């Protein structure tokens, strides 16, 4: 499941393990440094190139996972 991989990346970068599928990236305190790390992790760990604009448009684990799924 893509969503599991995405969640693992988010939990690592935010250093917390209680992130739900519909939690908002920015409400969690996300900013450009974390976004960049997550963007890199998507490439290296999920083989997915996710443009930053898509990360802004899809700020939850559920929505970005759906985007990654659909872009394959």
């Amino acid at each position, binding site marked *: 499941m893509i969503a599991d991989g995405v969640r693992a990346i988010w939990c690592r970068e935010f*250093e917390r393990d209680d992130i739900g599928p519909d939690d908002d990236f920015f409400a969690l*305190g996300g*900013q*450009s*440094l974390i976004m*960049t790390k997550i*963007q*890199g992790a998507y*490439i290296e760990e999920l083989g997915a*190139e*996710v*443009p*930053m*604009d898509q990360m*802004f448009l899809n700020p939850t684990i559920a929505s970005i996972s759906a985007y990654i799924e659909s872009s394959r």
Partner: protein
Amino acid sequence: MILQGKRVALPPNPVVHRRFEEHARATPDAVAVFRAGERTTYAELDARANRFARHLAARGVGRGAKVGVCLDYSADLLVAVLGTLKAGAAYVPFDPAYPPARLRLLLDQVPGLALIVASPATAGLIERAPVEVTGFEELSERLAALPATAPAIEVTGDDLCYAVFTSGSTGTPKLTAVRHEGWFNLMNWLQLEYGLHQGSHNLVVSAFGFDLSQRALMTALFCGATQYFTTSRNFDPMLAYRMLGEHPIRTVHCASSTLYLLVDWETARGGDALTRLDYVLFGGEALKAERLTDWARREGNTCTLLHQYGVAECTDVATSYDLAGYRPGGHEVAPVGRPAYNTAIHLLDEALRGVAPGEQGEICISGTGVGAGYLGAAGPENAKFTTVEADGEPLRLYRTGDRGRVNADGDLVVLGRIDAQVKVRGMRIDPADVERALARLAGVREAAVAVTRTAAGEAELSAFVVPAGADLAEDDLRARLLADLPRNMVPARFTNIPRIPLSPHGKVDRAALADAIARGL
């Protein structure tokens, strides 16, 4: 204390779009804009901008008017910008990544706003626009019917060229305007001082609303080079880095925090696209040299880092420093160097008298770049633009509110904000000075210092440290700081935290830290 930049004569009519037009005549087939595989030549861009200028002029939009531009980076955006300048008006950039409510708030603050240029992708962001919103799609037939030659509209170096919103220290956005002469002088200095030329192609990576983006956008066209755009609305390290690798881009202008992200991207993946650049021109916040050191020392790195300082009110960049001359690890922060051509830096005390060499003072800027001031409602803020007497002559200068001094090499060093200083037991202290001292201690990766209040209401300092390894003991930190700092500058309390909270703009969120203390963290 005065640092005087070189005096370099400008052409009799230093108007930015005239320089672009000279290139359009000399090298009409050179590529002016590249985006998503699409190339626009100088001749094409010039012709489109001429038509748009004629359209504006026919509607009575000329000198004194403002044209809002809310477009994604594209040839269209440059047509809107250059056409506005050719019509004699000034443009106001609006970042399409802003939330609609924010855009609306800003638009309402623009005096003399004549119209807004938007695209199908951006027009929907502007709710209840105060003036007409139009786009090149709707205008295409009308524009095609207009002559492609430049309209005969006289524009002088004194006319406004653009106005940008600056958040200032109060957080309330203010619209600050600059003049053609100042903008021309800035790009003329960069071109001559750093040898930029027709091959100095540039990639824009910063959001359109920022002051630095205006220079980033126009310097390549000022030099006859190509302006490259990514296809993203938000800064995208993956896409930006790919562009650097695939195209003959030589320069990038960006905020310090953006440079760190690009450096991290390259370091993590082992490319060399960034190291092969000629210049990165960056600044805007206190330099974190440790974020750049390893990268800067990489073998074969030919990229010159220009660490720059300036304010939007004085046409963006006022000083520049080649970081190759900086050895981090000392007790000195990285300098921001020497003034631009026709620009002077004055270090003044509270009575606007010059301080002695080596002493700290408020950084004030005089010269060609000093802008036209704040437009609209924020009139009283214009008191920051003041006139002093120099050699018996009145001299207009801008008080930045920044604190600095000139080091032994004759370079400007920025130390912090005047208004960030707090009195702790009678001594004026800037938390930034304490942060720097903390960050130099072994075992400290990063540090932030917030001003908090004791139960009795007195100001005190609270330090937050991100340890490089194990948590650091309060007594140990205090003892080591006392070796470097006066007692009043040593924080009352120390807290280990996993990371420094940042505001949405990527700056240290001291308010959040002070809050945490107030809540009894």
